[in-house]
């Protein structure tokens, strides 16, 4: 039996930077399946929460992140897609192959698996192009392929469609749903309410560094519990 890294238990995690509390204290459990959408106004701490879960932020003051297996091993089974995709100065193919090449896969095997992934995300024709000349939508699809190539158990996405137009967003969502159906746990932030309605199984609503709600999507959109979430869904400006 393969041990899963999930569920992840978060206890009283606080993120501080230069004496300012950006997030927390947050206590929650990330279950072993599902597609969670993190919502909240700008500066609420969506990005910080995702980075915290991914282990890219130091936990200050006593809190902890508890995976089911040791943290170093759990790192290998997670992936992150950033808001603005980071394109390495290499071909699209080598960008996708990079995570494999840094983790013991031979160049040849890494490239052939990267080619399969480019095919899947519809970028096969761009394999030999420099990644830096790709369009915004292509870049984000490339970043998704690069994140998925090591078969992560959990995938974090930080507003991946924030800079994409309608068509690119739809293509990206289709690919994401495919990964989800293939068994990847997804945690994604967005402030596009329509996108949240389309994708979410459950919604985490964040405000002022606190998780105010963590409820199934249907329930959240029908009757949000907190006044902040109600205002946010109505389209009011939440400060």
């Amino acid at each position, binding site marked *: 039996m393969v041990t899963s890294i999930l569920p992840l238990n978060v206890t009283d995690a606080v993120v501080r930077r230069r004496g300012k509390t950006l997030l927390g204290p947050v206590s929650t459990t990330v279950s072993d399946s599902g597609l969670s959408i993190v919502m909240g106004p700008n500066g609420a701490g969506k990005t910080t929460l995702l980075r915290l879960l991914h282990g*890219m932020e130091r936990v200050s003051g006593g809190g902890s992140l508890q995976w089911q297996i040791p943290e170093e091993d759990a790192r290998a089974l997670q992936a992150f897609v950033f808001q603005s995709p*980071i394109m390495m100065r290499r071909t699209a193919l080598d960008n996708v192959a990079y995570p494999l090449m840094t983790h013991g896969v031979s160049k040849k095997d890494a490239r052939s698996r990267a080619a399969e992934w480019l095919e899947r995300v519809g970028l096969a024709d761009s394999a030999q192009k420099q990644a830096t*000349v790709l369009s915004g939508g292509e870049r984000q699809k490339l970043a998704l392929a690069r994140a998925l190539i090591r078969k992560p158990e959990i995938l974090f996405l930080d507003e991946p469609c924030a800079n994409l137009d309608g068509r690119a967003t739809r293509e990206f969502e289709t690919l994401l749903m495919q990964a989800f159906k293939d068994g990847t746990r997804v945690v994604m932030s967005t402030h596009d309410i329509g996108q949240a309605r389309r994708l979410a199984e459950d919604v985490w609503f964040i405000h002022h560094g606190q998780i105010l709600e963590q409820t199934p999507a249907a329930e959240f959109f029908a009757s949000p519990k907190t006044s902040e979430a109600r205002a946010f869904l109505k389209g009011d400006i939440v400060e």
Partner: protein
Amino acid sequence: MAAKGAGRREGHQSGCMNEILAGLLEAGRLILTLDADLIEISLRSLQVTLTAVAVSSAIGLPLGCWLAVRRFRFRRFVIATLNALMGLPPVVVGLIVYLLLSRAGPFGVFGLLFTPTAMIIAQVIILTPLIASISHQAIRELWAQYHDLLISLNTTRWQRIATLLWDGRRALLTASLAGFGRGIGEVGAIMIVGGNIDHATRVLTTAISLETGKGNFSLALALGFVLIGLAVVVNLLIHTLSRTEVSGRW
């Protein structure tokens, strides 16, 4: 001697233009006839500076990269020192290397003074801070761009450095070329430690200096044009080989 030169210039306004023209013609003649002395000193210039650039790059490029990636206590101080050392006066470097390598100096037993090796040592000292500093600037930008991705992918420190060196190779090439530019035209240090000995340590810059001193302006100018041509050719050659200017590549 400087006063005499100035007098000549004032006396013969048109003579000046004639000298440049004569220099060009002489340069053409020297190159077309494959003048043995010219080829010898040009090759020695290249040998000394290219070796120095290779050694300095081997030290300076990883050092610059390491300084960009690694956080440690005296980092700022080291970087400031490196930047300051970019302006090292070659004559002073030459003097210090001279004293170190001279018979009575600590490395005198190796008998390196007045050899091309001594010139290479002096140039390595001059070029390394320059190459390290420029590569540090370039890699720091690339690192800012790659930081989150490489952390997220759980890469080791050496993988990060290797990735940055490889992906930043064109910027690093510029650092090495800047080093080459400074080295090939440098005269102060190699004059002192090399001694400008005919058929042993004479290079283009020291030969120009000598011929100018002798009042042999057209030959000095000819050598000058050859030197400029050499620098341009080496730069173009490296750019062509590395395809830096091919369009579509960032």
